[in-house]
């Protein structure tokens, strides 16, 4: 690591997930190895081949005041709730508006609003549309509302790269602070995509698990019997801050955001590149950018979504990038896959893993598939040693986007 570069640390965490309405409840559920996946009860399940999902444990519309909730798409509700938690957790830092930024992403945006507004339009005419329809459906809506909430003027951004969106947002936030554009940036991902059209479309791509008789066991990364991902929803946001700014105000520091790696497969619009070259490139860049060697990296929170194609390629890429000593887990086995929200919550989990020095397990891994040469932490949590250690969060997206973010203890 170059000595003169701005160091960036994490001072606040916020999340609302299928396992809990905040970071504490979600984290304890992760360590207990609990599944957040449940059967769907809506009438529309009869029309789709997948009848379960990781529905948010706490309905965001119940948390927010009604006048606020009705103007927000569900993805915006999740983002605003997680942002408020993270901001409070960071001690509500005093920072000039011109030095405060936001980078909050969603993979799909306000699709629930898009679809229900189109129904309203067809059935009742344009006059019956909410005047907030556009800000509810625009993909930058969650970032914009969080920016308004905090009064951020250094820049409000929403990077979009499907399921890598949340991690890309955190990477962009890191670069904002390194470039000197901001001292504090709220960043992460959100998604609210549990809608019959999305389920049908992902099922049409043959990407989803149809283990309808055992929803809690459907998300099973690296297990030989895995048959696709499980859709989840929620948001995870973190407060990134320059080390100097955090120390000056006496903030509690969870971890350092030490390195960023990004690459593109340029191989296929949905299929992962079989050699994992792009994934290796992203992880290696994150490691180098952080000034680390493979030995320093003890843990990877993997993207592993429980699809037949991706999980093993990623595990092999971890081994190629860092070595076989790495303790790997996929928390998606418990939360399901939050698409653009994944990089947000999984960064929160990676940071908690470092600060608590314990790796949450991968559940449902009963029969490890061939070709995995790193250790998958399964069934129960695994302690990490003391001293200076590092971990990497991976997020990959349809389109061939690869993002790896390296965190270290401080």
């Amino acid at each position, binding site marked *: 690591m170059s000595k003169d570069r701005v160091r960036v640390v994490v001072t606040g965490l916020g999340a609302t997930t299928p396992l809990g309405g905040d970071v504490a409840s979600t984290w304890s559920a992760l360590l207990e190895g609990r599944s957040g996946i449940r059967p769907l009860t809506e009438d529309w399940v009869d029309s789709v081949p997948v009848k379960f999902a990781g529905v948010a444990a706490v309905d965001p519309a119940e948390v927010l005041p*009604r006048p606020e909730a*009705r103007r927000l798409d569900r993805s915006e509700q999740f983002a605003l709730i997680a942002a408020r938690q993270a901001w409070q957790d960071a001690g509500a830092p005093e920072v000039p508006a011109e030095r405060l930024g936001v980078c909050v992403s969603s993979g799909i945006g306000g699709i629930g609003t898009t679809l229900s507004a189109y129904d309203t339009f067809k059935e009742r005419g344009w006059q019956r549309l909410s*005047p907030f329809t556009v800000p509810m459906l625009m993909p930058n809506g969650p970032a914009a509302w969080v920016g308004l909430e905090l009064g951020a003027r250094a820049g409000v951004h929403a990077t979009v790269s499907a399921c890598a969106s949340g991690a890309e947002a955190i990477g962009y936030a890191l670069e904002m602070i390194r470039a000197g554009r901001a001292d504090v940036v709220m960043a992460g991902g959100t998604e609210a995509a549990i809608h019959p059209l999305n389920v049908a479309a992902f099922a049409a791509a043959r990407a989803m698990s149809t283990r309808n008789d055992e929803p809690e066991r459907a998300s099973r990364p690296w297990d030989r019997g895995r048959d696709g991902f499980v859709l989840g929803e929620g948001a995870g946001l973190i407060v990134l801050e320059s080390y100097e700014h955090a120390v000056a105000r006496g903030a509690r520091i969870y971890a350092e955001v030490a390195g960023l790696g990004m690459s593109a497969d340029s191989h296929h619009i949905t299929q992962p590149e079989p050699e994992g070259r792009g994934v290796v490139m992203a992880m290696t860049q994150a490691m180098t950018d952080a000034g680390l060697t493979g030995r320093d990296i003890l843990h990877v929170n993997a993207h592993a979504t429980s699809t037949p194609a991706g999980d093993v390629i990623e595990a092999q890429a971890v081994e190629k990038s860092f070595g076989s000593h790495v303790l790997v887990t996929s928390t998606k086995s418990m939360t399901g896959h939050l698409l653009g929200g994944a990089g947000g919550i999984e960064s929160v989990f990676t940071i908690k893993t470092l600060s608590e020095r314990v790796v949450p397990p991968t559940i449902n891994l009963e029969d490890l598939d061939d070709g995995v040469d790193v250790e998958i932490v399964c069934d129960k949590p695994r302690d990490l040693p003391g001293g200076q250690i590092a971990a990497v969060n991976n997020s990959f997206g349809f389109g061939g986007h690869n993002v790896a973010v390296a965190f270290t203890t401080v």
Partner: protein
Amino acid sequence: MALTEQEILAGLGKIVNEITGIPAAEVTPEKSFVDDLDIDSLSMVEIAVAAQDEFGVEIPDDQLKHLKTVKDVINFIQS
């Protein structure tokens, strides 16, 4: 049967509360939506849409801009 002023006022109070969070009791005939209740133009559109559903009266945009007070809306619905 035409609604009484009290019935319309109660309905409007509920709508304004639902949309803005302002207590229904503060929605009284002499209040101006913009100056007294601090309601912005997009919220007025939401209130007009909800009032149309509640009272079965179309409020065209060129009429809406003339409805400054709660009493104006009551009169429009009654007319």
